[in-house]
């Protein structure tokens, strides 16, 4: 009984995404399409944190993130830590590095951009990590703030 009352159960194998920007967890689940993949997932929101005042945490059982999922995660919450759990122990702990560019992963919001009009063209953005995180379409030059990125 006590186990069921605990806020968080440890997982045997899988991935714990920690230090997610508070309130961003749901968007990460949606964008990475994690809930559709059939594994057990726990989302904790607004967990008190030493580093920031609060954070979100996602636990995914029996699965690790693919490269493209990691890159999307880095853009959605640049300071998130990814812990790989094997047999209840943290086997690897990484902050996912921001990629320099992303391809075929987001949509340019400019309807008149060639990337939205040419059959077979793939979108491509460079990452601009200044005071705030932005991506810039390499084709039409449109800049998009982190909050407004539309992932494919």
């Amino acid at each position, binding site marked *: 009984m006590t186990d069921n009352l605990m806020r968080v159960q440890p997982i045997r194998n899988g991935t714990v995404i920690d230090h997610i920007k508070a309130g961003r967890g749901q968007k990460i689940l949606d964008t990475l399409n994690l809930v559709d993949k059939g594994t057990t997932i726990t989302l904790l929101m607004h967990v008190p944190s030493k580093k920031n005042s609060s954070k979100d945490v996602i636990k995914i059982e029996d699965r690790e993130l693919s490269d493209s999922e990691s890159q999307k995660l880095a853009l959605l919450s640049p300071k998130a830590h990814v812990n790989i759990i094997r047999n209840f122990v943290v086997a690897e702990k990484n902050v996912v590095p921001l990629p320099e560019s992303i391809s075929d992963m987001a949509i340019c919001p400019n309807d*008149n*951009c*060639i*990337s939205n009009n040419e059959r077979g063209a793939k979108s491509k953005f460079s990452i601009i990590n200044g005071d705030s995180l932005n991506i810039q*379409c390499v*084709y*039409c030059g449109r800049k998009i703030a982190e909050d407004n990125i539309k992932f494919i």
Partner: protein
Amino acid sequence: MKHVVSISDLSKKQISSILKRAKELVPVAKGKKKSKSLDGKILATCFFEPSTRTRLSFETAMQRLGGTCIGFADPSATSHLKGETLVDGIKMVAGYADAVVLRHPQEGSAHLASENSEVPIINGGDGAGQHPTQTLLDLFTIKEEMKKLEGLNVGMLGDLRYGRTVHSLSHALAKFNNKLSFISPDSLSMPSHVTDDLSCKWSSHNSIDEVLNKLDVLYVTRIQKERFPDMEEYKKVAKAYIISSDLLKNAKSSMRILHPLPRVTEISTDVDNTKHAAYFRQAFNGVPVRMALLEQLLGGKK
């Protein structure tokens, strides 16, 4: 320098060297001297959108240097309508020519073309995006008219929000350390994505009277009807930004007026015969500047 997609692809040094060579080529552009520097070279002009000045000046430039042109001025005569992609079209044309000038209605098309072409792609305008050769000829005109390209106070007037020529020109003039004065109604003011990146001094004004007597150059652009939901509002705004010879009494006598053309009513025809009018010379300058660029890209003999 392989492709010229955006003016930011060119360093200050590369720009200066193109302008210098353009000056030397003026007699050739006027047909007073002959050149064979691009003898045997073929330029493809692919215009998926009509443009008289850009296409004709590129074709003149190529032929004055002894080269020849192929191409189309109207996509309805091409496989584009059959559903051919731009990438397929460019790969084909790149096999026929030594360089390609591309005008296309969509932003980023020249960049996409450059990723898929063995031969140099020159952006001849991509939608509301870039038009680097217009910027080069604007810079050349300012340099020729003012005898320098640095330390000038350059006013830009009209539609600064949607006008791509003023966006690229602002960046380029900032590189050469000029002061920029933006004059427009609030609804058409210079967007922050342009001003944020400017490394020079600039100021914004609603009325030309605030700055006219300080300007060395005035770059005028057309205010387009389509930008206004209300015709009355358009007429009011357009009227407030008309340059007439009367208004110019307050300007420095050395001030020069530029305009990318075509002009409608924003510069009265009575300005044409004043010492301020430089816009027809500016249109001619498209030829020597494009000659200099073609020589650089195609390795012409000097």
